[in-house]
């Protein structure tokens, strides 16, 4: 199968799903969290590039390790999570650049979706589909938790369980996103389509529908632009997202 088709299939699933999860992250004011998490996947991405396995598989353990470290350090030092996140992710970047030859650094930082093979693509599509079902299942409860934790508790929502599933979903999405747009740009994959969708939505239905559509349009056009111009797909995907956001800001419904 041609590498274009594989890239497109991977891009559609990852871009669409990241945008879908992004709608929840925007509501919880956590859009930027994917940024540092993306950065700290770098050592894993470096290993994957050096030994030639899928970068998402390299990235995932480092995201999880990062989340656990931040959580443990927060318990111990009582420092705000953002300070700890800064420490952890900068260390991740530093470690990666000790080992990663400069030649491969670009791939690690801005991604290269055109490298995916058939197996990578199948795995991505399956993981994205399962994750989509999980996010759809926890969505109403997450919205309720977001409105009021007490309200959610009275309705019998196990807040810890739902937050855990939500964080796990973020970890997986970041690992997949690294493949599409690299460590530097994963935050944009969740943040921009949902922000654009919210500009244009007055209910959840259109919000959660528009965001993935924007994510998919950006991924597809970014990959196509690469195919015809050889400009790197990752940055193009993000810039198309930005363009959609700017247009949505112009058409934003008046309150």
């Amino acid at each position, binding site marked *: 199968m041609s590498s274009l088709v594989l890239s497109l299939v991977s891009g559609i699933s990852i871009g669409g799903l990241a945008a879908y999860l992004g709608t929840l992250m925007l509501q919880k004011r956590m859009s930027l969290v994917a940024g540092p998490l993306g950065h700290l996947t770098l050592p894993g991405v470096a290993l994957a590039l050096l030994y030639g396995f899928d970068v998402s598989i390299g990235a995932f353990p480092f995201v999880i390790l990062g989340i656990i470290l931040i959580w443990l350090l927060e318990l111990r030092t009582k420092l705000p999570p953002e300070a700890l996140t800064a420490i952890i992710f900068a260390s991740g970047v530093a470690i990666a650049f000790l080992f990663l030859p400069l030649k491969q650094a670009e791939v690690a930082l801005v991604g290269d979706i055109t490298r995916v093979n058939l197996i990578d693509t199948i795995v991505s599509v399956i993981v994205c589909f399962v994750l989509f079902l999980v996010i759809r299942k926890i969505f*109403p409860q997450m*919205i309720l938790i*977001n*409105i009021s934790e*007490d*309200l959610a508790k*009275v309705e019998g929502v196990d807040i810890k369980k739902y937050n855990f599933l939500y964080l796990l979903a973020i970890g997986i999405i970041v690992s997949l996103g690294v493949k599409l747009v690299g460590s530097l740009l994963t935050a944009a994959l969740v943040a921009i389509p949902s922000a654009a969708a919210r500009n244009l939505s*007055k*209910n*959840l239905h259109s919000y959660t529908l528009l965001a993935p559509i924007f994510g998919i349009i950006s991924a597809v056009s970014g990959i196509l632009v690469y195919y015809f111009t050889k400009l790197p797909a990752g940055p193009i995907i993000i810039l198309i997202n930005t363009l959609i956001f700017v247009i949505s800001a112009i058409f934003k419904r008046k309150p």
Partner: protein
Amino acid sequence: MRRDYILEVKNLAVRLGNVSVIDNLSFKVKRGEILTIVGPNGAGKTVLLRTLLGFLPHQGEINWQKGVKIGYLPQGLTFLKVRDLPLSVKEFFLLKTKNENKIQRCLSLVGLPDKEIYTKRIGDLSGGQFQRMLIAWALINEPQVLLFDEPTTGVDIGGAKTIYSLLFNCWKEYNLTIILVTHDLNIVYKYSTNVLCLNKDRFCYGPPQNILTPEALKRIYGPEIKFYKHQH
């Protein structure tokens, strides 16, 4: 526990950190009663409600009647939190039930029967509409007990009157038991079966005629409080 008590609280004590918020509090709530909780800011009213719901660690006993269904509206569930949310009234109710007929019946009950409201964004409702919608939301799964924490925050005086008379109608209609935190002493006098006044570790409890005397209020709120009994 006798069956006609829906809630029995015995020697309840709640500490937040090193501060004792509630100490040695006992009261009972009968089925069908309206218990109002009054007291100055910081007296522990919200803490008490949240403790009754099992959210906070405590000493002493809180016994709800077995299998009782509780509805709750927390304090300050105002626009701030949902104003920016792209969430329609319909979608807000769908978080709780899938039965759309029931949703519309419930909205009609609180005086919001319009189709237009149903699809409106929550953030676009007026303060009064929003509060009425919340009451409908609390009632939708037919709870036996409703816990309300200052349901008229952010609503003007006229609106507040409407909310309370609405609440009172629902109370009759559904044979509810209501535990209500409010600052509005007129409402307390008009509707409550019993009143619980909280002020730090002191409290008083009984029917409003006995509790809402000028002397008792002075003890709870301090000497500035003014309240006149309505002549009916």
